[in-house]
């Protein structure tokens, strides 16, 4: 029971704006929006401190639906606005919402640089492997041979692997989740928020209009258990309801059958999310029919944030040089008087 006069905690409603949500019915974006709106009250952040920044694309309409501060910016550039904002306002809680085209194609350069700088933000990368808002062209994550409006005979560009790219750019937190598993998503987003530094979360998101079922093998009941492995810190990489596991043969991941009698659980690789090497291996379990697709936190590292370094430098210099005096500065040169 609430004590009289005690403040009521915020709810999902407090984070929902008055704008009509305009995504297509059945879009995976709805599940992500609902998960984030439900999660926000649990994060212990004041609503007025929260800023959502997006680029262009279906996913980038996200800020309009959050009753927080927000910017719907231009294509691919959300990380640049977020960097400028955090550099000047480290007190704010900044979230970036982007898609595969926005983050990995037109904004690819900004993504790698925000990751290496480690600006304290959360990046929600909605990956639906298609250009939705422009009505169905292949995206940088579309599979080779993908037939779309702009590739009627199949795409000739191999897909980009966002997790491997983020790791390569020096990201301090990299994770993957999916729109169909909102409990997992909430858990991952909560951890991403807790992380100090840039937390990149790739979210597999179904576009039921232009790329329906792109991730069904990883999200639907019939195949999910066999095709996915949940990464859990300190736990063996077991999947398929305990029947199979990932074993490391040197640096090479292999699947082992735990029911065959030949392998036991002690042969399975034990995941360590602080290991850059394991993250590299798990991150590259991608595009293979035999290996399961990993979900969860691939990598986590404690590293000083960009804005903290910037602040520290200013404090040190101010300590050395003293605070500002404009008139002194203007006169700080070889000057002469004319009377």
């Amino acid at each position, binding site marked *: 029971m609430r004590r009289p006069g005690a403040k009521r905690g915020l709810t999902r409603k407090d984070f929902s*704006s008055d*704008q009509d949500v305009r995504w297509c019915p059945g879009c995976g974006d709805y599940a992500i929006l609902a998960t984030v709106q439900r999660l926000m009250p649990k994060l212990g952040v*004041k*609503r*007025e*401190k929260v*800023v959502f*920044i997006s680029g*262009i694309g279906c996913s980038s309409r996200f*800020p*309009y639906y*959050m*009753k*927080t*501060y*927000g*910017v*719907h*910016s*231009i294509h691919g*550039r959300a*990380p*640049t*606005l*977020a*960097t*400028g*904002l*955090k*550099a*000047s*306002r480290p*007190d*704010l809680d900044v979230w970036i919402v982007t898609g595969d085209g926005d983050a990995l194609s037109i904004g690819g*350069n*900004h993504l790698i*640089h925000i990751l290496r700088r480690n600006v304290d933000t959360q990046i929600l990368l909605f990956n639906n492997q298609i250009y939705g808002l422009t009505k169905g062209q292949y995206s940088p994550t579309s599979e080779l041979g993908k037939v779309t409006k702009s590739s009627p005979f199949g795409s000739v560009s191999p897909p980009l692997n966002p997790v491997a790219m983020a790791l390569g750019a020096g990201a301090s937190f990299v994770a993957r989740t999916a729109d169909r598993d909102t409990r997992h998503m909430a858990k991952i987003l909560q951890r991403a928020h807790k992380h100090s530094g840039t937390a990149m979360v790739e979210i597999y998101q179904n576009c039921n209009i232009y790329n329906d079922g792109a991730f069904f093998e990883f999200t639907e009941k019939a195949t999910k258990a066999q095709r996915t492995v949940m990464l859990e810190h300190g736990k063996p990489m077991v999947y398929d309801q305990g029947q199979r596991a990932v074993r490391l043969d040197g640096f090479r991941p292999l699947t082992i059958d735990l029911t065959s009698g030949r392998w036991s659980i002690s042969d399975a690789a034990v995941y360590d999310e602080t290991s850059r090497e394991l993250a590299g291996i798990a991150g590259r379990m991608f595009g293979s029919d035999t290996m399961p697709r990993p979900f969860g936190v691939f990598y986590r590292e404690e590293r000083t944030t960009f804005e903290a370094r*910037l602040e520290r*430098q*200013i404090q040190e*210099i*101010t300590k050395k*040089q*003293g*605070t*500002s005096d*404009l*008139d002194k*500065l*203007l*006169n700080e*040169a*070889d*000057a*002469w*008087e*004319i*009377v």
Partner: protein
Amino acid sequence: MIDLTVTTKQVKQIEEATILFAGDSGDGMQLTGSQFTLATAFAHNDLATLPDFPAEIRAPAGTTYGVSGFQLHFGSVDIRTPGDEVDLLVAMNPAALKVNLSRVRLGGAIMVNRNAFKPQNLKLAGYGTTNPLEDGTTLQGYRVFSVEISKMTELALKNFGLDRKVVDRSKNMFALGLALWLYSRPLEPALEWLGKKFASRPKIRDANIHVLKKGFHFGETTEDFIVRYEVQPAALPPGRYRAIRGGQALALGLVAATAKSGLKLLYSSYPITPASDLLHELSRYKNFGIKTFQAEDEIAAIGATIGASFGGNLGVCATSGPGLALKSEGIGLAVMMELPMVIVNVQRGGPSTGLPTKTEQSDLLQAMYGRNGESPLPIIAPPTPGDCFFAAYEACRVAVKYMCPVILMSDGYLANGAEPWRIPRSAGLEDFPVTFASKTNRIFEGKPAFLPYVRSEDTLARPWARPGTKGLEHRLGGLEKEDETGNVSYDPENHQRMTQLRKAKVNRIQQEIPPLATYGDEAGDVLVIGWGSTEGAIRVAVDQARRQGLSVGAVQIRYLNPLPQDLGAVLARFDHHLVPELNMGQLSRILRDRFLLPMVSLNKVQGRPFMATEILQSITDLTSSA
């Protein structure tokens, strides 16, 4: 210590002089020029400089395209340009002579480093096998001082135990010393500078000081020079002065805006010539609430600027033409979001990479119109290096007051050129009030609400609500905004209204612009209309034309958008309108469009500023054709 100011030579008083130091890009000519500038400032002369260097850092030695020059015009009279013609050319090698000879006035002086006129260098400079010092024709009509600068530097440093390279690099100090003697400039500023610069390398310091003094003494003792010049102090208004480059002044103007507004400044930039100087300058002022961010590209720099401004800070970025092109989409977003920020464009020769180290004014139309959609914004152009300070301050103040991005147009000449600058007092700068929204501003659907696009009646500015302010949570973006609420709107009438409002807001800035001051005649035959760095050359030309009895006036337009309210009335007072620009006629196009008056364009795109004579010629042509 020897009194270096006493001379046995004949002393000639002159009112002004133009000197040009030229040599290989590795010869230290920029340094020599700036030290001469400092000494000249200390002699209380008025001055204007024109550094002119190649885009290559160390172009192959001895080539004509590797020549770096520093021109300086100084005098006891009002100096407004770096000088049309050179009185003394200091040429450190044949290539420097080849490139710059045409700029020396007939009867002018040429001082060469004779030791550099070797077969190899002559060939590289395109002289073939003939030595211009000896052929009897090339330098006919000039006074030539052929000095063994390299050899005397070597002799001077014989006992310093320095390697050849270091010795060779010191020869510019000999040239500097000699030039300082010739024009009776004090040695002290250069001595002090060397002392500071090489404090940790005393051997190099002593060697440079020794060579500098040797150069100075050489002037006194050699028979070559029979005359020494003196230039009396200029009659500048009383005050405390310093020599300042436009780049420095602009940076200090931004610092002043930060200090007076109480805002924090985030300066984001991607290195680009000739704008990088600003990044270097501002990076030093961290204790003034200024953060600098070297972004991954031009687009990231404008993005970070928008982010900072959204956060309630002063967002500033600087670039040059190609970078402004990359920033177009971002600036469009800033126009739509109506956030205050300043975008500095230090113009250079274009199109494309063009002439990175040379000056031009060819981005005016890009600044005016170079964005998709109807996206007007204010444009301010300072006319002198020193005014870059006030223009930067003004740009920040106007951006915040009217909640819009402002483009500040500098150019390579303004940024690198120097002049004496009367140091302002911070208390004398115009007030810079900043108000952030703190509470709801409307009753909307029966409840108090914060609507981000409710406008001030006076300025049409929308409120600036900083994230972190409770109850004012709002979303901005690039999609068209509904009037007042700022919600996404595709309504046809609303788009028309918002487009007109954005334009009307920029036009409101006219109320900030003081009445135009006409230089020269208030009415008459020809009005010369300029903008930016051409002011000096225009005024010199107007003075000369008026001395010839012509009726000429001039206005230099500092606000290019919106144009000053009284410009039409000023135009109407003259029969002819001459618009000199370092482009193919951009302001003239804007003026023709606005006033439906014939504008005579004077266009120059050579990577160099106007000479006053070029403008004078156009003025006389116009009056004689009338």
